[in-house]
């Protein structure tokens, strides 16, 4: 029996609220960084097989960048920030002050720009999350991959030491109004994290 087998609607709502608060803060920091308006979708929370997590983002062979963090501190969890190919190039152009359309492939410089975007977004997500739950949360140095979505997502889990073929995810979509940016942000609480999250909010798991 997994912790998530005990989840009820109230728990799911609490997780979505974390998604809301965290991603709201993250979208604001991304918007400040780019000086453009960034919106987010209504957060989704629940338990999904890996295959369906892929479906939330797109097609298995679609190229994506994934910036991955492990979170330590009060709870252990994993964070994945995914961007589709054209969003990657646009972000690099915007942040390096180049005309849009300049970047057409990823080089070292581009990768470090994307990791930095990941740092900003993850940092602001975590600080809102930590504040809401009165916890202390620290992200690791980011790991990076740019490849087919299917390969990237499955490997993000297993290379990161997460071996179940299902995961509890809190998902948020990001999109730009004036610019074409599309991204997904996943929070994946690891073992024993759930109980601590709910306790901090005055809920219990059973």
């Amino acid at each position, binding site marked *: 029996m997994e912790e998530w087998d005990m989840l009820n609607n109230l728990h799911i709502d609490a997780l979505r609220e974390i998604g809301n608060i965290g991603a709201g803060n993250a979208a604001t920091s991304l918007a400040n960084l780019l000086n453009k308006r960034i919106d987010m979708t209504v957060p989704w929370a629940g338990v999904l097989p*890996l*295959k369906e997590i*892929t479906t939330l983002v797109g097609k*298995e*062979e679609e*190229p994506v960048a*994934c910036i*991955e963090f492990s979170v330590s501190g009060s709870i252990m969890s994993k964070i994945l920030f995914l961007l589709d190919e054209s969003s990657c190039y646009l972000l690099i152009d915007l942040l390096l002050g180049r005309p849009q359309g300049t970047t057409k492939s990823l080089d070292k410089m581009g990768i470090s720009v994307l990791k930095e975007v990941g740092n900003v977004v993850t940092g602001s997500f975590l600080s809102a999350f930590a504040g809401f739950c009165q916890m202390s949360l620290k992200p*690791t*140095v*980011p*790991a*990076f*991959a740019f*490849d*087919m*979505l*299917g*390969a*990237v997502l*499955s*490997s*993000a889990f*297993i*290379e*990161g*030491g997460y*071996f*179940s*073929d299902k995961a509890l995810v809190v998902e948020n979509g990001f999109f730009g109004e004036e610019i074409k940016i599309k991204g997904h942000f996943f929070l994946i609480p690891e073992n024993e994290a759930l109980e601590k999250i709910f306790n901090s909010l005055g809920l219990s798991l059973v």
Partner: protein
Amino acid sequence: MEALIKTQKIKESKVGIAEWQVLSAPARLITLGLGSCVGIAIYDRTFRIGGLAHIMLADSTQFNDKNNRAKFADLAIPDMFNEMVRKGAKRHKMVAKIAGGAQMFSSTDRHLSVLNIGQRNVEMVKNTLKNLNIPIINEDTGGNYGRTLIFDLETGEVHIRVMGRGIKTI
């Protein structure tokens, strides 16, 4: 490439992550986006029966939850082998081709971890095939990129699609 275009009308079947499937020609078995996972194509060229597995992890003995046997190299390959035999394939006619086992993520602190899952998956796949006496006649493993594997049961050819590198046949 030509072979791919010619056979476009035949039955295509998708093998998902932590799944395997056995079919007879004419058909193609496809698995998309192998990262550190490994794709194992076993073929009986006489009866033209083929099996394709997409494993995630090497060793089931390290885990308590074995509900999905197809997830583990050491369980999925013998299970698929048995199904091939049940469908009429002969052990001494079988050959294998494998692909995947990459390390997708790079990080400045990731090298601190000794575990390269992709490499360990490939090793377990090789051991398991060896125990079944199935020779590996070709492979495309390792590296840091994802692969799509297309297994043509008509010819036994395995086509590997890599982002930005086109298709190669093993």
